[in-house]
């Protein structure tokens, strides 16, 4: 099994959250902690880079839903970027494209923030 890892780094007025490995019920709390930290620091413009994420379970999907309302109430957003096809299928099946902006690349997502 791939270990799960979260890396965050600032990029302009946005924050990039990079996910690695498997995101499931066991590793979801780690990502929750990352989001809690970002929100407490007033970071509401978040780009999640899925490039190195190999698997996501329903519990992993739940994490994004838990924070989206608070982020948007603070005029921010969680934008998802560069998903592997398999991961995208999971998001797509559930109807996430209705709720989240999903981009092919991280830069595209960042540009969206910077252009506003």
């Amino acid at each position, binding site marked *: *099994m791939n270990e799960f890892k979260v890396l965050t780094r600032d990029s302009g007025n946005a924050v990039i959250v990079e996910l690695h490995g498997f995101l499931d019920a066991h590793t979801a709390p780690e990502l929750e902690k990352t989001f809690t930290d970002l929100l407490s620091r007033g970071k509401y413009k978040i780009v999640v880079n899925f490039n190195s994420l190999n698997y996501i379970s329903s519990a992993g999907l739940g994490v994004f839903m838990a924070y989206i309302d608070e982020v948007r109430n603070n005029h921010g957003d969680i934008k998802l970027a560069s998903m592997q096809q398999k991961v995208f299928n999971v998001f797509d099946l559930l109807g996430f494209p209705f709720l989240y902006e999903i981009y092919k690349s991280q830069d595209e997502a960042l540009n969206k923030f910077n252009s506003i």
Partner: protein
Amino acid sequence: MRLNFRNSLYLTTAGLIAAVLLVFDWIRVSIGLEDPVLNGFHSLFTVVAFALLYAAVRLFRNKKSAKPLEILRKLVAYGFFATALISTWGIFLSQKGEGTDKYVPSNIMQLLATTVFAFAIAFFVIILLTTVSDIIYIKPERKVRRRFELFVGFAILASFLSIFGRSGIMGTLRDIAFGIAAFIAVLHIVSMNWIVFLSRKDKYKSLVHTLVLMALFGYSFASTGPTDAAGGVLNFYSPPMAELAQIVFLFLAIYFSFAFVVTIFHIPTSGVFEKKKRELDSYQNLSKVITNVMDTSEVLNNTVAVVGAVTQANKVWIELRYEGDSPGEEEYKVSATHRTSQYELSAFNFNDVRNSVRKDKRVIIQDTDEFQQFNLRGFPARSLLAVPLIAHDDFIGMLYAAHEMPYAFDDEEISTVSAFADTAAVAIQNSLLFTKSLENERLQHELRIAHEMQLKLLPTSLPGSDKFVTDFLSFPAFEVGGDYIDYSRIDDTKFAFVVGDVSGKGTSAAFYMAYIKGVFQSLSASAKSPLEFMMAANEAVQSTLQKNFFITLIYATLDGATGEVSVVRAGHTPAVLVSPSDADGRRCRLIRPAGAGLGLEQSDDFGRHLCEEKFVLDHDDMLVFYTDGVTDQRNPSGEEFGEERFYGLLKELGGGTPTEVKGGIIRALAEFSQGTDAVDDTTVLVLKWR
């Protein structure tokens, strides 16, 4: 006392010797014979008779270990009799005797009386010697036992040497042996262990007893010398016997003089000793109680009560450590108190004490100002001792003892409390584990009930007709699951089918699943269309669902007469339509109308995104609904069963009846997983149009 063959043989032989000696003495007295060699033989025979008497008395002896004070009481009684005998009968006899400087009985009656007197004294000497050995052997070291035996040896040697008279080289040797015996008697002062173990009250009693014994044996010693009245009588009958009596009386007089003094010296330390004894008793008591008790609160309460009693601490309490929900988080809860209360303690924060204890093993606060260092200003005590409860390397909690006096805890008390804590910790952990296993058993029972309840929420069978047949499978990955499958009859010809999946697994998912059943059963019949049903379901779920939970549903209506099907999908895995095809057996089409999972979007957005897909079933068409438990099933090498494999399987099985298809899916999953446990609930619905 009981007579058996051996000691009656000893006594009879001794009596015979005494009778022979009596005859000999009578002849000796009648003719006034004074031959040293004959006297020597006489003495030798008396020694043999006394030895036999000693052997008999030893056999009579009660071997049970007695308390020091009981032995002292016995000694006083024997000593009193011996002294009385010496001071009455002995003196009376000596006055009746003839001769100026040496006692000689004047007639056969006196001779008989002398014999009886000598044997009586010998008897008491033997009794006294064996009784005092009882007290010397209380908690003996090997040295002590050897020293006493050495004393007896020299006493016997001296008395044996006295056969040869008191003058000349033999007399000197006798004097030396006597001196050594007396010296060894003095050495016994260093090993009066029994005094140490007496309580304060018993020490006072011991003082009186030893004083009386000292007086009795001092007097006995003084009046049995060769030139004394009673001593003369004994010396006439048997010089070695008189000698032995002298030495034993001397020994007893010395021993109890010292015992008296030692007792006086030990009175001030009685308090300490009694405390130690109390600690030991409590400790034993605690060990006994807590190893037998499985009730945690009883173990805790016993521990604080015992520590309170032993240390005289004003407040004693135990707090247990509990793991928090997330790793690294911990919580402390006061679980037992003695002379304090949770309420009183709740006003103070012991975090600093805890941290120190985890670092340094224990915390000792000895005066008021030190409390401030631990953020405990105003704590109603002046000393505080805190030790960890550690069982099998687990830090399970803390034991606290507080005292209103400063410097209340000395090293000894600290080590005692630590010892209690170590014992208690193991017992507490055992009882906690026991409680936990009981709790686990109870939970398992509850889960079994929940499992049975959930099975009742699932349909036992799905409907069918001459036009269509159905079958399904649904296995939870754990006792209870979050998958849902159901149907309802809308009107004479129309049916509604639903398959759903609540995100997450286990109990919370099971509750939402039960909730969805309620939603489905109440809404499906009244909903005018699948779209309307799904909108209403989203509305119902939106208000109850936790933010990071969601439910996916696929819902279809079937017209049993025409084969018209209408499918709506809320984030669920697509339906699979398997139809016969001319070319390569069967083909697969995914029915995947747009729609987000329930609870993800507000009604307006949800409705805007939701689509419906309609189609008509043809002869031999098979419609399959499933949950991702099927495709997420892994094999031992971590590979997923996956969509492609599943759809391929459906194409293969498509010609069979729904029950055959179901069997084929179960077989394929079992073959693929090779025993790997399912991680998610697995549900499949198969509908075949005839």
